[in-house]
């Protein structure tokens, strides 16, 4: 029995060497890259795992994804500590709390591990930070879609989760500015209605909005709950064909309203692509390559990334995905 175990170890070592050798033609090393996410087991990060694992298989790296089983900042820090002890080549992280992981990421970098973070534009201790998109560009994307569905004319209203939400306000501000510059025939009747990330409030506020402005043609949502909440109100009032609803959401949340036509388009970013982009950046840094403004990561949505002018290690993709009734079946999260 003991002998058998020994043989197995030798064999597995041989396989490992052969495997590492086999990829030598394009890379000097087979890197081990860990991606640490906020919480393991939810649809969003399951989707990211698909991207991370496929990237590894396609390029011959050992890539894997892990995260705490509960949303817990301390647990995430412990996982990163374990990875440092294991001696991985790079750590990609989607921090639960940007501040909480700063010390452990600093230590990882001291040990020579490359650190790439995501959804963390204020991260200090990272070799590179990659964001799915620039907030202003995303707001303009939403408005362009709303304007096209409204035929560039008519009245519309915007929602935010809360007036304190930085990203929501940036999306809406950019969207309204874009409308004023490009679609002068459209009119904003109520700006930044708060719905507190609450489906019920989004629904009630939309009903009120439809009463106050019976001629309303469009609604732009920011929080995950606006597109379905407004969709339900539009559906109940029988206005599927008249009022266009666009906003940030997920297929799993808005499916039934996309189907009924009450919600016209939802947008989000695909975590699988974000996972690929993080790993690609890690590999490039490990290879000693520099990443410049306009670099092509070879990942959908990250084919011409923008380098932040003030913070050179911060990059933006343009990785939003617009989903309608026609292509919603491609996304299972």
């Amino acid at each position: 029995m003991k002998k058998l175990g020994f043989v197995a170890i030798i064999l597995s070592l041989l396989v490992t060497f052969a495997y590492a050798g086999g990829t030598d033609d394009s890379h000097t090393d087979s890197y081990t890259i860990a991606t640490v996410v906020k919480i393991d087991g939810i649809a969003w990060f399951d989707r990211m795992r698909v991207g991370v694992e496929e990237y590894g298989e396609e390029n011959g790296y050992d890539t894997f994804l892990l995260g705490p089983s509960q949303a817990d900042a301390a647990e995430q820090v412990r996982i990163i500590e374990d990875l440092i002890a294991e001696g991985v080549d790079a750590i990609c992280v989607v921090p639960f709390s940007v501040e909480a992981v700063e010390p452990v990421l600093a230590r990882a970098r001291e040990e020579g591990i490359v650190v790439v973070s995501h959804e963390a534009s204020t991260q200090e201790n990272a070799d590179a930070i990659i964001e799915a998109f620039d907030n202003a560009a995303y707001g303009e994307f939403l408005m362009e879609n709303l304007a096209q569905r409204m035929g560039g004319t008519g009245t519309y209203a915007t929602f935010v989760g809360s007036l304190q939400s930085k990203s929501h306000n940036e999306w809406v501000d950019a969207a309204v500015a874009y409308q004023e510059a490009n679609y002068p025939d459209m009119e904003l009747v109520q700006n930044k209605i708060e719905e507190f990330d609450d489906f019920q409030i989004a629904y009630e506020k939309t009903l009120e909005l439809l009463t106050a402005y019976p001629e309303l043609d469009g609604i732009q949502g920011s929080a995950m709950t606006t597109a379905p909440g407004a969709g339900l109100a539009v559906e109940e009032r029988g206005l599927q064909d008249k009022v266009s609803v666009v906003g940030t959401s997920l297929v799993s949340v808005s499916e039934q309203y996309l189907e009924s036509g009450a919600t016209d388009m939802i947008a989000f970013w695909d975590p699988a692509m974000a996972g690929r982009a993080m790993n690609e950046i890690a590999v490039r840094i490990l290879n000693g390559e520099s990443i410049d403004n306009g670099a092509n990561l070879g990942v959908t949505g990250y084919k011409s990334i923008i380098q932040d002018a003030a913070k050179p290690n911060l990059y933006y993709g343009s990785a939003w995905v617009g989903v309608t009734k026609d292509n919603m079946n491609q996304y299972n999260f």
Partner: protein
Amino acid sequence: MRKLLKTHESYIAVILIVFSLIVGIINPKFFSIGNLFGLLKSTVVTGIFALGVLLVLISGEIDISFPAIGVVSMYITGTVFEAIDFSGPTILAFLFSGGIGVLLGLINAAVISTFRLPTLIVSLGTLSAYSGFVLTFIDTRIINRLSEPVVVYSKLAFFRRTMESGQIAELHFSFFVYLALAALTALILRYTIIGRGVYALGGDRQATKRAGFSIKKIEYFIYCYVGLLAGLAGIIHSAHVRNANPFDLVGGELNVIAATVLGGAIIGGGRGTVHGTLLGVMLITVINNSLILMGIPSYWQRFTTGFVLLIAVAIPQIGSVKSIRTPRRVRS
């Protein structure tokens, strides 16, 4: 007649009418049938919760665990009925959710009654325990495909008509469920021994005991009934929003308690009526859902809500300061 005008409830009714008239003058669309139907539907979930809160307040306690009971009942119902692909009568979903509510209310009652602890403290604990239980042991996923009977219920509406603007207006069936539960609660409070016991308990605990009431029985009744109402409110909410979200409802408890107090229930206990609660809930709903109609910019809406609420709470007090200062009596 003079006595009627002096009650807290009549003040709230007057404020509700005056406020509605102001909104209606600023924007006559307030009185459109679609808006009124929408407002009535919006009162349902808050209102059913508030009926439970009313009982607890009358008994002289404060319970904040009811949204957790609502979410647990609704989410377990959603999960189970999704798993068995339920296709029976809708009433079963209501009974199931209400039943879980009663069970959780029973736990509250057992702890409160056995250890003679203040309800506020106990419910503070059970609030996080119940909602934590769901997230840990059941699931954290939002169920977007409810079972067929619940979906049918979610579209069950009456008086469907097309308004001038081409929009459809309809009154949801839930409003009648709400009215029936309100009538039931009023009957219990007014005409049953246990209902009178709830008032007595809030008036004076010792005197209630000496009068021959079983305090234990009254407390078990209150918290099981609150559980039942919360379970029903949960499943109705779930049907209204057409999903079952384990992160829902919790956080809305203060709004419900505010509506009940606005309706004349006194936090010290012994006073409060069902019709007052209905008015309080209606007033809060109208205030929360008229600011866009009045054309108030988003940045001003929070301020306006708070300001109008303050006025609504203050005005009845001016008229009834005297009656509050007199020794508390058992009233209905």
